[in-house]
C-alpha cells in the first residue's frame, strides 16, 4: 500500500546513495533569470553541456518591469541579468526559452501549467520555492537552490533525502466568499510557518476535491509557507480536463497511455502517512495576516493575539513583528485604512483570480486613497482578461492592468510599496521588506483584496 507521493517518488529513483540521499530523475525543469546565471557559470567552468535541453523551460519573470516591456529595460543591472539569461539559453541550445515580450512569457508557475508542461506523475523542480504549485496536478514538485539547478542542467537528476509524508484533509464545504487562498492561510496559521518542515503534504477531502484546477494551484503554491517540501493533490477528472489539449500536453495515443497511468495515481486505502491532520472547511472565514510571516494569520473578524497568548520563546520575534507592522497585540484590523492593493503573483495571478476580483468591483469605484497594482500572471492571462471583457469592467471601476511578471510579490523591479505603507496583497509572503524596504504586507485572497480596493480599508467581502 503506497501513498501518491510514494508511487511517484519510487518511479523516479535512479539510484540510492549509501547512507545518504536518493538520486532522483527530474521530468521537467523550470528556469528563471534570477537563480540560474551562477548555475550556467558552473557548467562553463566544468566544460559541461545541458544534458536534456528539451526538459528545461525558461521564462523571465522575477526581475522584469511591468510597464513598457517593449522598451529596453532601464535598470542596467537588471538588463544585464536578462541579457545573460538570453545568452545562456542560446549558448546551451535551450529551445523552450520565453523571454520578456514572448507570447508565452509570464510567471514561471503560471506559464508551466497553462502551456501543458505540468503533468500528473511528473517530478518537477525550479530554482524557486513556489514550485510546489505544480503539485496541484498530482506531481512531486519542489523548489531547489542554484547548485541543484546546475545538477539538473548537467544530469537531469538531483540528490534528495526522502521527506516524511503528511496528509491534510479538509472535510465539508467552504462557505460563501471563502476562497482557496483563505483555506491555505487558515491552514498555515494553524500549523505555523515551520509546521510542515521535513514533510511532503498531500491535500485531500471534500473541500479539496471541489476546488478548480487553479484553486488547487493556489493551495499547493502555499505549501512552502508552512515549511513543507511540497504539496500535492491526487489527479482526477478536473486535472485531466485541464491538461487535455494544451500545447505541450501528450497527444493522441500518447495521451491515452498517459491518462491510463495518471488514473492509478492516488493514495491506496490504508497507506500510512507519518502525520495526519484534519480540518473542517466550514470553520474557515476570509483570512488576513497581521505579522511578518505567513503563519501569522487570522480570520478577518478576529483580533491579533495578545502577548500572553504567544509562547515565551517567540515573544521577541512577535514584538519585533508588531513594531514593524505598526499594530498592537490584541488589536482588530477590520476597518483599518490601507494604501496599496496587489492582485497577482504565482499564488493569485490566474484568470479565475481576476474573474473573482472583477466580479466584486463591478459597478463600484476604487477608493481614492488606494493605489492598485493588477498584474496578470502571464500574457495568456492578460489576453483572457481582455477577451472576457473583464478589462472594461475594471477600467470602469477605476483600475488599470500592468504587464505580466512577479512584480510587487518580491519587489525586485520598481513595483515597491513605500516604507510604512500598508498593502493588501494576494501574494505569498509578508516578510519584512518583501514588498519593498519598510513595506507592510497584509496577505489575503482576491476577494478581500477587491473589498479593500473599493472601501480603502480592511473589509470583509461577505458584507
Amino acid at each position, binding site marked *: 500500500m503506497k501513498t501518491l507521493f510514494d508511487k511517484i517518488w519510487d518511479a523516479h529513483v535512479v539510484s540510492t546513495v549509501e547512507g545518504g540521499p536518493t538520486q532522483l530523475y527530474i521530468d521537467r525543469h523550470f528556469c528563471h533569470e534570477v537563480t540560474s546565471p551562477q548555475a550556467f557559470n558552473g557548467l562553463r567552468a566544468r566544460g559541461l553541456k545541458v544534458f536534456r535541453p528539451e526538459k528545461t523551460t525558461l521564462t523571465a519573470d522575477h526581475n522584469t518591469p511591468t510597464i513598457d516591456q517593449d522598451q529596453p529595460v532601464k535598470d542596467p543591472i537588471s538588463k544585464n541579468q536578462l541579457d545573460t539569461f538570453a545568452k545562456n539559453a542560446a549558448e546551451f541550445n535551450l529551445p523552450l526559452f520565453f523571454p520578456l515580450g514572448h507570447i508565452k512569457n509570464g510567471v514561471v508557475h503560471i506559464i508551466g501549467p497553462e502551456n501543458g508542461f505540468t503533468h500528473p506523475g511528473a517530478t518537477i523542480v525550479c530554482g524557486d520555492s513556489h514550485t510546489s504549485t505544480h503539485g496541484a496536478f498530482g506531481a512531486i514538485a519542489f523548489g531547489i537552490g542554484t547548485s541543484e539547478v546546475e545538477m539538473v542542467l548537467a544530469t537531469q537528476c538531483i540528490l534528495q533525502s526522502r521527506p516524511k509524508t503528511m496528509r491534510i484533509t479538509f472535510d465539508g464545504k467552504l462557505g460563501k466568499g471563502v476562497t482557496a487562498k483563505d483555506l491555505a492561510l487558515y491552514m498555515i496559521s494553524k500549523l505555523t510557518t515551520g509546521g510542515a*518542515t521535513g514533510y511532503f503534504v498531500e491535500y485531500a477531502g471534500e473541500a479539496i476535491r471541489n476546488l478548480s484546477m487553479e484553486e488547487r494551484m493556489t493551495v499547493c503554491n502555499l505549501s512552502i509557507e508552512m515549511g513543507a517540501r511540497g504539496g500535492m493533490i491526487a489527479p482526477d477528472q478536473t486535472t485531466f480536463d485541464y491538461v487535455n489539449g494544451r500545447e505541450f500536453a501528450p497527444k493522441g495515443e500518447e495521451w491515452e497511455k498517459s491518462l491510463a497511468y495518471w488514473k492509478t495515481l492516488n493514495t491506496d486505502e490504508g497507506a500510512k502517512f507519518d502525520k495526519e491532520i484534519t480540518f473542517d472547511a466550514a470553520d474557515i472565514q476570509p483570512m488576513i495576516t497581521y505579522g511578518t510571516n505567513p503563519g501569522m494569520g487570522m480570520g478577518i473578524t478576529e483580533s491579533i493575539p495578545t502577548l500572553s497568548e504567544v509562547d515565551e520563546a517567540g515573544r521577541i*520575534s512577535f514584538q519585533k513583528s508588531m513594531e514593524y507592522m505598526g499594530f498592537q497585540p490584541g488589536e482588530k484590523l477590520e476597518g483599518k485604512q490601507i494604501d496599496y492593493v496587489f492582485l497577482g503573483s504565482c499564488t493569485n495571478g490566474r484568470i479565475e483570480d481576476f474573474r473573482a476580483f472583477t466580479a466584486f468591483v463591478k459597478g463600484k469605484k476604487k477608493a481614492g486613497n488606494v493605489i492598485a497594482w493588477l498584474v496578470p500572471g502571464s500574457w495568456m492571462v492578460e489576453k483572457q482578461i481582455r477577451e472576457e471583457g473583464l478589462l472594461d469592467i475594471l477600467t470602469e471601476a477605476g483600475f488599470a492592468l500592468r504587464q505580466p511578471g512577479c512584480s510587487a510579490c518580491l519587489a525586485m523591479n520598481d513595483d515597491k510599496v513605500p516604507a510604512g505603507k500598508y498593502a493588501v496583497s494576494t501574494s505569498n509572503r509578508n516578510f519584512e521588506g518583501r514588498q519593498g524596504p519598510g513595506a507592510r504586507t497584509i496577505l489575503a485572497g482576491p476577494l478581500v483584496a477587491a473589498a479593500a480596493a473599493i472601501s480603502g480599508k480592511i473589509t470583509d467581502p461577505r458584507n
Partner: protein
Amino acid sequence: MEKFITLTSSVVPLPIENVDTDQIIPARFLKATNKDGFGDNLFADWRYNKDGSPKTDFVLNNPTYSGSILVAGKNFGSGSSREHAAWAIDGYGFKVVVSSFFADIFRGNALNNGVLPVVVSTEFLAEVFACVGSNPSTTLTIDLKNQTVTNNATGKSETFEINTYKKECLLNGLDDIDYLLSKKEQIEQFEKARV
C-alpha cells in the same frame, strides 16, 4: 568546495525566530550573475540605515560579537529558495549556523556551499544564548567527524545529525555534481527503461 573538519570559534548571536531568506539577503540584491559580494549585504535591512550607514543596534555592527559561527533562533532560513542566502552567509565569513530548527531548502543550500547547519536542542540553544549574553567571548567547538557541538563555557556537548554521504562530501570538499556526473551511464539506462 573547501574541506570542513573541526572549528572552534566565538559566536554571533541572533536570537530571532523564523529568520527568512528575504532577511538574510533581500530580493533587490539578487540581480548579480555571479556569487561574489553577497556577504556585504547579509541581513542588509537589519544591518544598514537607508543612507547605508550601519545600524548600531544590530549584532553584526556590534564589535563585542565576532566569530565564524552564527547562532540563530528556530526555523532559520525559511521562505525563498535563493541560494544567495547561503552565499551571503559564506561570503560574510560564517562557516557554521547553529539553530534548533532549519528550513529544508536553506539547509540543503548551505551544505552545497560548505556551510554546516548544526541542529541543537532548544535547551542547548537557550544556554548558548545565555552564555554569550553574559560572556561574549564564549566559544563553541564543532567536530564534524564525531558530529558533536560543544559549548566551551559549560563543557556541555550534543551530537548533531548529518547523513554519512553529506558528511563525507564536507570532510573531503566534494560536490553532489561530481557524484551525479559519475552516474551518467545509469541515468541513460534509467531513461531507456522508462520508454
